[in-house]
């Protein structure tokens, strides 16, 4: 499933010039917006969620999963992958700094569950996480999925 969803247009490696969680969340959301999968309001809702709920979306060391509640602004279930050149702080006491970001936009309960399961399986593998932090090409990413 991840192989089909993480297409080249929603994946970026070694992204430079990101200094804040808001910039990181917007960057990961804009990839989905530019590819026509979500509307801008969803991107801003992800930023709002971060402000309201804090850094809990940093689910594991170095990994953030920003998301929001969809309301007609998610056109298709999608996910983006952003690997930062310089890890940044999200303000999480245990899991900072953040190196990789998967922005999730869910729609449709069944598919959304399947996506989370696939992502859990990928991130449950410590070797793969290390590789996700260092790989630099789409081909390498595809091999991990």
């Amino acid at each position, binding site marked *: 499933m991840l192989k089909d969803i993480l297409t080249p247009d929603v994946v970026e490696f070694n992204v430079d010039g990101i200094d804040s969680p808001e910039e990181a969340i917007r960057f990961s959301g804009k990839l989905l917006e530019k590819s026509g999968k979500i509307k801008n309001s969803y991107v801003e809702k992800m930023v709002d*969620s971060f402000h*309201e*709920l*804090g*850094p*809990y*979306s*940093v*689910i*594991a*060391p170095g*990994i953030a*999963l920003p*998301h*929001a*509640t969809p309301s007609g602004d998610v056109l298709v279930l999608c996910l983006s992958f952003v690997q930062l050149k310089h890890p940044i702080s999200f303000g*999480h*006491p*245990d*899991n900072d700094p953040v190196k990789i970001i998967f922005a*999730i936009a*869910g729609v449709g309960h069944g598919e*959304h*569950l399947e996506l*989370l*399961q696939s*992502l*859990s399986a990928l*991130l*449950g593998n410590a070797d793969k996480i290390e590789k996700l932090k260092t790989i630099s090409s789409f081909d390498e990413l595809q091999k991990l999925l």
Partner: protein
Amino acid sequence: MYVVTGCGLGCGTSLMLLMSIQDIGKKYGIEIEGEAVDLGSYKGKKCDFIAASSEIAKQIDAGDIPVVGIPNIIDKAEIERQIKPFLVKE
């Protein structure tokens, strides 16, 4: 057993956590039912325990119901360590 998992919105990390907890239950031969809820919805839920990422768990006040906070919610070994004291065979 019945477990409630919480996250800010009730659709992302809480669901991932619930699925992991159910897998761990299977390993011990315990069937775990549950639901993933947002921060506003856990109150009044009847359950054996509540689990959430540590940043969310801090914000949960559930009275007598144990709340388990998990810093790394994709580390199954860590989740297992944290929830094991609360697993009960019925």
